């Protein structure tokens, strides 16, 4: 499985494609610091109004801020709104 992933990463780099396009990463888009759109398969690890931690498959993304709310969560992605003060990747 790891071998296949490595090969796909190589093809990705060879053709100069955006990172994670073939391997299936999560695409994160920010609208100022008020909204974050996560496009791709993700699941919640921690959820409160000051902290939302999301598993993206390749790692985790943690949104820290005030009045954070998960507007939508489905198979295709998630929508987070509120005042985002910090984003941490791990």
């Amino acid at each position: 499985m790891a071998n296949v992933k490595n090969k796909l990463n190589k093809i990705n780099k060879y053709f100069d494609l955006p990172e994670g396009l073939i391997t299936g990463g999560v695409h994160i888009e920010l609208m100022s610091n008020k909204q974050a759109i996560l496009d791709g398969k993700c699941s919640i690890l921690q959820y409160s109004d000051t902290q939302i931690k999301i598993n993206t498959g390749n790692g985790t993304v943690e949104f820290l801020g005030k009045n954070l709310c998960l507007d939508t969560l489905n198979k295709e992605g998630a929508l987070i709104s509120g005042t985002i003060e910090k984003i941490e990747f791990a």
Partner: protein
Amino acid sequence: MFMLKSFRYITGYVKFSGKGVFPERFLNLCANNNILVWSPKVKYGELSGYMHINDYKRIRKIAKKSCMRLKIEKRRGVPFLVNRYRHRYGIPIGVAVFFFLIIYLSGFCLNISVVGNDVIKTEELETKLADSGIYLGRRIGEIDADIVRQKFLIQNREYSYAAVNIKGSFITVELVKTDEKQMKNTSKKPCNIVARNAGKILKVKAYDGKVSVKIGEAVAPGDLLVSGVVELTNKTTKFVHADAEVIAATRHKLEVFVPFKTRQKLKSNETITHSVLRVANVNIPLFLGEVKQPYETKKSVKKYKIGGVELPLKRITVDFIKINYKKIRLNEKSAKTLAKQKMERLKNKQLGKTVKSSQKGKFKVTKKGVFYSKVYFCEENIAKSKKILK
């Protein structure tokens, strides 16, 4: 957002709260099972959020898996509202009746407006339109605008153009009156011009036909003035519609009689007011009883409007003013004065402005009353058309 909220309200949703060990797992499982949870909040270990009613029925297994104990906080939406009032039959019946009346009544003519009518009175025109097939309260589907238009134009020669526009329950009738010249040309049957009264010809203005009289000539009633039979140069005869204006000096003797014993009409202060509410073509009386004695009536109509649009609702009020007749005996002087007044009214009615001069009136007093006669000299058009072929 408004559309989304409206959709959610129509389909129905619940606000739920749950306590458990893994609220995050619960949210993940919901997402994987295509269950939409919106505005989830976690506070003091308690999860709350919103979901559709149908989805709530599907989350029992998910809640069990994620060790959550859920309960419904609020129920919102149309399905719950309908369920709450399901035993109140009056509400759906009322709603159904409301929509039925709106749809049913919009199929009737509720307003008729006329554009371009300056020939006849509105009431008279309404009667004529009713004869043609347009009246308040008629079903719109039964009105064929083209047939009504043709029928109206055939019946009313004073109009040269009519258009009937139907817009919903409103009908607009546009009219254009016929020119006087056009009106004359409508009858093209051959005819002669004969004298209506006896007189001395002063002026002849013939538009068509052969003039048979000369200026200064005296004519009797029925004498031929302008002939509709014209002889052409090739000795053939042609029948035409003779048209002319023949001014003649005429003499009219008018006579009136005023009896000594007469009755005088006196209006009393006694007034009875009756009102009728007219909805479309239906009259709803707002009074009881009837009026039998001799009364003089005064009618007034109050029309109701909303935003400049006339409603098919009128309040017709009729004031019945009681009339008393008093028997009186006139003396000779007052009878003569009355006779003069009567003569003046008769002259205005019969001769109008054609009077040029008059002789002094003559009184003849009898036992019963006063006869008053007067001779008027006029200058008038005595032309009268008479058909040649019957």
